[in-house]
């Protein structure tokens, strides 16, 4: 059952490491490119949506809120939303789809901007929740004081349990990292484009076992804009609209990285199950996959969550060559966050849309008509199924 909503344009700034460029410059560049892609002008934009909104809990994690962006870009909107507490980085896109489907707006500019690379210092690391605060509250107050400070620790212990139950090895994760790098070599916007061999992967330093350096995504400075339009308004845009066939979200277990009864599953499993309830389409209908890869281990979780293979079967599914270049279910064809840079899911969706419009030069999946996107790791997750008719 298709929603009355579609993606009509995407744009990404020139992302990089230690760019020194202000977040708003990145955002404006991404917005200009997204409007060009959609064939719209700034006067057409009447909604704005982001994740998480302006936040200072981790350096450079979210320097811009909707208000500042409206002011800076001179937008006149009748719908705005920032979602710090929703179904993952997908939340602003889901909110936008619901806004256009219910007539709150016609064209919503959804954005994600980060300056984590430039903001990171020796004492203020990006991605450490509560960094610099005197006292901590919330779910991470049970992790950070125990020195479980980084999401790499939390993902690391998920991976340990998954390896233990299903016999996955570092080589399987290495196939994800090297496969995505092979894609990135055909993506001029990826931040990591030099070849990556299995030997390089296995020889890199350990971060939090069993996850090493190349299992972790790359902090960057950059912005990405995705325009979500009402289905009738989308018909006037420059490209074929990418219909939002279905979405899914869930917070089925506790808001926590350690309490879920089975840590070989995560929020992704709940969100994916919700999505498939709302469509006749099935995994076999999907051509392109955009799966959250803040850490490589999330890729097998998302593959299993969406049902591309059974629980515990991802290692064989990956080893059989399904997800890399030339595979039947190519994952993160722009290099993902592991090689492309951490745009918190927006970059993955940007790439999926580029594939559906047939413009992924050098890495194009022939005849790609449908894409699935899963964002989030740990307890939060959101999913979206896109269709080009």
């Amino acid at each position, binding site marked *: 059952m298709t929603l009355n909503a579609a993606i009509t344009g995407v744009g990404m700034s020139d992302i990089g490491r230690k760019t020194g460029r202000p977040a708003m410059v990145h955002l404006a560049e991404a917005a200009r490119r997204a409007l060009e892609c959609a064939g719209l002008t700034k006067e057409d934009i009447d909604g704005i949506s982001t994740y998480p909104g302006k936040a200072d809990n981790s350096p450079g994690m979210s320097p811009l809120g909707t208000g500042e962006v409206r002011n800076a870009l001179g937008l006149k909107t009748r719908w705005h939303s920032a979602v710090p507490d929703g179904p993952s980085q997908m939340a602003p896109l889901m909110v936008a789809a619901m806004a256009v489907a219910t007539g709150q707006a016609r064209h919503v500019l959804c954005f994600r901007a980060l300056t984590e690379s430039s903001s990171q210092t020796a004492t203020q690391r990006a991605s450490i929740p509560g960094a610099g605060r005197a006292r901590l509250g919330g779910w991470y*107050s049970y992790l950070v004081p*125990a*020195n479980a*400070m980084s999401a790499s620790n939390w993902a*690391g212990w998920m991976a340990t349990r998954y390896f*233990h139950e299903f016999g996955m090895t570092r080589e399987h994760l290495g196939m994800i990292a090297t496969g995505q790098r092979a894609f990135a070599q055909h993506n001029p916007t990826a931040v990591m484009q030099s070849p990556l061999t299995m030997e390089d992967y296995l020889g890199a330093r350990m971060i939090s076992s069993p996850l090493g350096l190349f299992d972790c995504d790359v902090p960057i400075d950059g912005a990405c804009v995705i325009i979500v339009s009402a289905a009738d308004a989308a018909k006037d845009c420059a490209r074929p609209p990418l219909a939002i066939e279905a979405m899914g979200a869930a917070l089925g277990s506790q808001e926590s990285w350690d309490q879920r009864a089975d*840590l070989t599953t995560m929020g992704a499993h709940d969100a994916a199950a919700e999505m498939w309830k709302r469509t006749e389409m099935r995994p076999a209908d999907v051509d392109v996959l955009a799966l959250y890869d803040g850490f490589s281990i999330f890729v097998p979780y998302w593959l299993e969550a969406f049902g591309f293979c059974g629980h515990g079967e991802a290692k064989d599914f990956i080893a059989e060559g399904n997800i890399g270049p030339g595979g039947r279910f190519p994952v993160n064809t722009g290099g993902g966050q592991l090689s492309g840079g951490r745009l918190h899911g927006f970059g993955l969706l940007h790439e999926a849309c580029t594939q559906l419009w047939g413009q992924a030069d050098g890495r194009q999946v022939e005849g790609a008509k449908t894409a699935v996107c899963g964002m989030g790791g740990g307890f939060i997750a959101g999913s979206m199924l896109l269709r080009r008719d």
Partner: protein
Amino acid sequence: MRPLPELTPENTAFWTGGAEGKLMIAFCADCRHAIHPPQLICPKCWSDKVESRAVPGTGTVYTYTVNHQPWAPGMAVPFALAVVDIDGAPGVRVTAEVVNADPESVAIGQTMKVVFLNIDDIWLPRWEPAQ
């Protein structure tokens, strides 16, 4: 400097029980549900009769990771972090900083026991091998 938790009515027993050498877990007095992280209301039956009780202070490693990256200035690495299923509190796990053990020796299924590190008004539970 290690970040510390903010003390609240529901979590004070958990973070200060170590002063008496006790690992305190919240339980519902009405339905006996073990609640972690601690809450003021029982998530299962919505009773407001939540009380903290000492549990044996032992548990079993459900999973673990060995951290090699210094995330804060002065952080000594490597060290092991475990997720421990707590004895006497069904369904409750804690994230456990492992001490007094070779980080590489930690294994799924291993039995651990709690020890406490006092900093200011907080007694952080940490975990060492039971044998």
